[in-house]
């Protein structure tokens, strides 16, 4: 069993949840990881201050795709205020694998995109 490429990570990579486009949508953002050229965008619909639905699109490595897929399950239904509070530890813990310093941005790209769409702050999550 590989530490990083666990079965559920590869499963999310090969068949990511909540991927595609969402038209119409209320919020959107698009980011790329300058280190590897990976791109990830998000479409979000909002209802009663919560994320009603969300879809990612783009391309990337197993870690970035699986992170987005896993996070999407948690993000749908979440209050927008709460999304703004999410930090890097939340994502890494949710992912459940040891992420090296060089792969950290792969894991955090989806949160950067979502926070960018929701709060307008597109800084890397700390």
């Amino acid at each position: 069993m590989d530490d990083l490429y666990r079965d559920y990570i590869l499963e999310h990579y090969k068949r990511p949840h909540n991927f595609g486009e969402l038209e119409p949508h209320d919020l959107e953002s698009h980011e790329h990881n300058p280190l590897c050229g990976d791109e990830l965008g998000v479409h979000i619909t909002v209802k009663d201050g919560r994320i009603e639905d969300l879809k990612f699109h783009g391309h990337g490595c197993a870690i970035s795709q699986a992170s987005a897929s896993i996070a999407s399950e948690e993000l749908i239904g979440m209050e927008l205020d709460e999304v703004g509070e999410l930090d890097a530890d939340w994502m890494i813990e949710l992912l459940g694998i040891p992420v090296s310093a060089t792969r950290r941005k792969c894991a955090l790209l989806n949160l950067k995109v979502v926070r960018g769409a929701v709060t307008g702050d597109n800084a890397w999550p700390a």
Partner: protein
Amino acid sequence: MPPVASPTTSLDVKADFPIFARRFDGRELIYLDSGATSQKPAVVIDALAEHLREHNANVHRGVYALAQEADAAYDGARRRVAAFVGASPRTTVFTKNVTEAINLLAYAWGRGGVAGRANVGPGDAILITQLEHHANIVPWQMLCRERGAQLRYLEVDERGELSLEQLDAELARGDVRLVAFAHVSNVLGTIVPVAAMCARIRAAGAVSLVDGAQAVPHMPVDVEAIGADFYAWTGHKALGPTGIGVLHGRAEVMEEMQPFMTGGDMISSVDFQSAEWNELPYKFEAGTPPIAEAVGLGAAVEYLSGLEMERVRAHELALTAYMLERLGEVPGLRVVGPPQAERRGGLASFTIEGIHPHDVAELADRGGVCIRAGHHCAQPLMRCLGVGATARASVGVYNEPADVDALVDALLAGRAVFGL
């Protein structure tokens, strides 16, 4: 597929490089990332240390014996480095790296002029190629934007090659002032026909700049024979230290150029309102130069000369041919660039269906193999190739066929991890 026989290669020098004595969790270092930076032989490490221990002083100022030793070491390094590629010390400028060398030209030549005529202005064009590294794109974008000039590209075909006919057509338009291009592509490995291109560019009255970062450490290079007006390369990819690059130029063009950076050492005299420039090459070396780094690079080129660059090329060609053949055993693997090893420098960029290049590099590391993944600072080229990223394996003098075997084993094991 039948197993491919290991080739006999002409060099066996891994033992000259102390880093290969290191172990990573008990495993040997399999280093296939020389396109990013080379490892250093003991003679380079020792030359740097000896200079700092025994001969350290600033250059071009001191009268004491130690300062004269530092002068001799620095000037001696310049002579060695120039001789290594058939250039003159007088027109050999030390920079920080190739990026700085290209910026030097983009500023000192690009913003300059001769006899009241700007070198680059509205209606003029700079011609580069789709093969270029960002270092040979962005300085020209900035220059063209500032000067109202046009930036045009020579196209790369599906085999990773440029076309001399397209170059002729571009030059025939009469507006091209400078053509800048890589000697060897850092992504595709393509060896560009630099001498033929430089002759055409000279005949058209334009200035040529060759980025030799991926060529000089790997094959015989004679900048005089190539006929480039400017030729840039970097120390750290050529077994030398980081922090030193080289720009060779043609004296007539360099004499007409204003300095790039200004300050100490590059002047002959300064009064309160003005200054006069020092002679070549010092006019282009402001401030205390990379002295120890130059000494280290001098030792590196001496080491390479001892190996003989023809043998270095033969060694790396055999390895590259073997690598292309063995990579063919990995299902779903596609190599980009020229199919024939003879048309390439010592590298292969590739993709594997179903595994992102970053994961390919991570999986290679599981087998102790260091390769690179990403856009290789060549995003426009990646767009031409229709890929976001590739994995890249690149060889150096110290590699051996077993390193290629380790790469292929790691890639096959990596496919299994991904359930392919």
